[in-house]
């Protein structure tokens, strides 16, 4: 008998624990992908001649409208998001400290709510046009021209107003963490502030900005509330038509896959933007470029405008409707709905960030292409309409529950019924599958800014991957983690279609309550719930801005 072989780590090769992370990452990624796979399986069914019919009638229009809408939102969020982030991160002007966090506020406003509010204000019977008619003595809509809010341009404007914070949030963090020192160098070398922004800061922030724009576009792609209200026929609107009116789940799943090809293109663009451009953090510092006189006030106005249009106006209109009905609103089950919303949003936020950290770290440890592909694929969940993803959740959960039930009947002669279907667990699973892209994007971008040298140094000193994550990365990543959690929290608060389909009996959330009324054009009754969603969204925004500030002042 020989002695048991002693395994010693081979120098120059990755040690075993790293592999466990990679395998774990693959398993989690596969779980997150299950709903998408289920949609693909459904789409593989026979939908008859629906495609021939659609392709010769309405489909080309759907695609073209979708492309136009995405292009407009991309330009809008890019300009507003990076412009304000740059001003806030680098310049000093009146009101900067308030605007710095206020610029996040529109994130709390659901797109369908802002669409209702602006229609109320800007349509023919709204206060704006009425005032104009009174002022100029016009009598009917044939006497003058006024931009139609219910249009492609209107939808793009609404979405830009509530989606630019994604770009702002990520770009500001990037400008903060990277651009400070670099900018000083650029300035020393004779670049003006504008050229420094365009030639140095923007390219450096590109990974973060790309993530932000990709998130905004994915949300544009899957929006149904706004486009259906504005009669803008995008692919999502077409998908609902096929599903609800033609009664074809298969056809709807197939359009869902067409939409996925849009997202796949977005994800690839974003990844290419990042390739070979991992910028690792220098010590965060705030470079301050004091502005004076008119330029300072111009900066204030530029940063205040999106806040006013995207938050102050809708919140005021909602408050105007809600306050006279406050007692009525509080009586109608709002407390329970609010608790449900908060509980789900916190649960989904924590879960999604945990999963995102695991995945991002596994990706950092492993260099295999398979895991990269798998991880990129999990990002797709964000871009298909929530209702379609919900169908993808129903199928595997139903199959699992029925399999367990069958087994229990065979073995013990008892029925377990449905364990997970129609439970809170199914809801949380759907939220994580849907919003993982957001959390992962933020965490991965943050992790990418931590120099690999730190890992190597810690490894040399004998620390395992878990210890390195806990002692080095997580503390460094705190800002990114809070960002990721906030994004998921706010989006879960707003989430509607998947919640409607998957929730348990007699289980309302605020978004469900708002939708009930808003879908009947009862804006006044919807206002208290909508306002609560917006206000609940404020808490994490304030929390976030405080976390960021603490980091800035060491």
């Amino acid at each position, binding site marked *: 008998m020989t002695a048991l072989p002693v395994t010693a780590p081979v120098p120059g090769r990755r040690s075993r624990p790293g592999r466990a992370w990679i395998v774990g990452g693959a398993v989690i990624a596969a779980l997150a992908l299950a709903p998408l796979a289920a949609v693909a399986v459904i789409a593989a069914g026979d939908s008859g001649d629906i495609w021939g*019919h*659609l392709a010769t*009638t*309405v489909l080309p*229009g759907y695609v073209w409208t979708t492309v136009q809408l995405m292009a407009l939102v991309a330009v809008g969020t890019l300009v507003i998001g990076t412009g304000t982030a740059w001003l806030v991160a680098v310049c000093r002007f009146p009101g900067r400290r308030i605007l710095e966090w206020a610029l996040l506020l529109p994130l709390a406003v659901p797109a369908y709510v802002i669409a209702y509010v602006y229609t109320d204000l800007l*349509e*023919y*019977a709204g206060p704006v046009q009425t005032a104009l008619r009174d002022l100029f003595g016009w009598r*009917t*809509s044939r006497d003058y021209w006024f931009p139609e809010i*219910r249009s492609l341009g209107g939808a793009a404007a609404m979405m830009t107003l509530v989606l630019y914070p994604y770009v702002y949030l990520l770009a500001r963090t990037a400008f903060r963490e990277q651009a400070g020192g670099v900018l000083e160098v650029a300035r020393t070398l004779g670049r003006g502030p504008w050229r420094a922004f365009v030639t140095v800061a923007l390219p450096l922030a590109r990974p973060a900005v790309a993530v932000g724009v990709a998130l905004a576009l994915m949300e544009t792609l899957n929006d149904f509330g706004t486009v259906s*209200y*504005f*009669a803008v*026929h995008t692919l999502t609107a077409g998908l609902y*038509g096929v*599903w*609800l*009116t*033609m*009664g074809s789940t298969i056809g709807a799943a197939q359009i869902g896959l067409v939409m996925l090809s849009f997202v796949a293109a977005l994800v690839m663009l974003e990844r290419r933007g990042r390739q070979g451009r991992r910028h690792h953090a220098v010590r965060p510092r705030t470079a301050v470029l004091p502005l004076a006189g008119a330029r300072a006030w111009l900066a204030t106005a530029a940063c205040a405008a999106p806040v006013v249009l995207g938050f102050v106006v809708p919140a005021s209109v909602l408050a105007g409707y809600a306050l006279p009905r406050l007692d009525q609103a509080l009586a109608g089950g709002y407390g329970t709905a609010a608790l*449900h919303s908060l*509980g789900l949003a916190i649960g989904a936020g924590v879960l999604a960030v945990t999963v995102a950290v695991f995945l991002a770290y596994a990706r950092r440890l492993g260099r295999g292409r398979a895991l990269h592909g798998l991880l990129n694929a999990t990002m797709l969940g964000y871009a298909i309409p929530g*209702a379609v993803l*919900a*169908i993808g959740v*129903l*199928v595997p*959960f*139903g*199959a699992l*529950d*029925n399999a367990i*039930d069958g087994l229990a009947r065979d073995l013990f002669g*008892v*029925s*377990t*019924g*449905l*364990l*997970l*279907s*129609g*439970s*809170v*667990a199914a809801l949380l699973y759907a939220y994580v599958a849907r919003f993982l892209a957001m959390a992962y994007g933020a965490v991965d971008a943050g992790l990418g800014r931590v120099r690999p040298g730190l890992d190597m140094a810690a490894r040399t000193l004998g620390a395992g991957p878990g210890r390195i994550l806990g002692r080095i990365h997580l503390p460094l990543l705190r800002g990114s983690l809070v960002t990721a959690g906030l994004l998921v929290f706010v989006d879960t608060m707003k989430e509607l*279609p998947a919640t*409607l*389909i*998957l*929730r*348990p*009996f*007699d289980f309302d959330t605020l978004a*469900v309550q708002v939708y*009930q009324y808003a*879908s*009947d*054009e009862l804006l*006044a009754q919807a206002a208290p719930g909508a306002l609560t969603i917006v206000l609940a969204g404020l808490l994490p925004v304030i929390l976030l801005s405080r976390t960021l500030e603490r980091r800035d002042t060491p």
Partner: protein
Amino acid sequence: MIRTALLTAGLVAAAVPALAEVNVYTDRQPFLIQPIFDAFTEQTGTEVNVVFAKSGIAERLEAEGANSPADLVITSDIGHLNDLVERGLAQPVTTETLEAAVPDAYRHPEGLWWGLTKRARVIYASRERVPEGAIETYGALAGPEWEGRVCTRAGDHTYQVSLVAAHLAHEGPEATRAWLEGLKNNLARKPQGNDRAQVKAIWQGECDVALGNSYYMGKMLEDPEQQEWAESVYIVFPDLAGHGTHMNVSGAAVTKAAPHKADALALLDFMVSDTAQDLYAQRNHEYPVKEGVAPSDLLKSWGDFTGDDIPLVEVAGNRDAALRLVHEVDYNSGP
């Protein structure tokens, strides 16, 4: 939340004998039907649990399979009822009460679904700009004198599709296509918004006539802001090819898996009782499906009319072809 999770997970249900309860999936807003469920619970002691969802009900039933907790699906259009039947998710049921209350035209011949309330698809006409008698048929909406004066919601919405399907059933594809094209040409704007928004557009002066379901009139009159819209229009019950005004139903189907079938049938019986039919009429301004129950005073004030009594299963059979026509004339792109 944990408690709810356990309850719904069926752990509790597996351990104790079933309570008297009925589980309902519905696309009707809870604030509309809850009062009827409350009245049922008060009378029988049976609890009614509800999931409200606008889409995905059929898919959820399919995924849950034989273990689905749902007993009853209550839905607002013949299209959705038909979808449940086609997917094999409904089971045939009947009771003496249902047989006596629901006329043949408004139920499935094998009892796979039962109509609970009726609604007419009417023309809303401007009091100011449309003299009484100026329009009396759906067909007239496609005529040259209405060019640029008509508003409707999206052509592929289920209410519009059902109307087109009824037109197809009576008049055939050629005439229906011509009518749809004429209607599209006469639109004042791109189809958008819901039925209420069409009335609002008349009030704003954007159009003079609009298509909409009858009960919206009652709902608008109840809303302090919308009252003014409602008062700017009057209701015309248009004729469809000599058969009367197009009717649709909200209805219910008992699911194939229904674990509480007896209680579900009791709820169905209750929903066609005089009490519930009256509640529907008073609260939702829908027409009672049960013969002999008088509509509310408000409904009576809109006038008498002949409803098309073509069996709704026949209309449902034409829905697919109707939707294709809507796509082919590209109705949603507007005038």
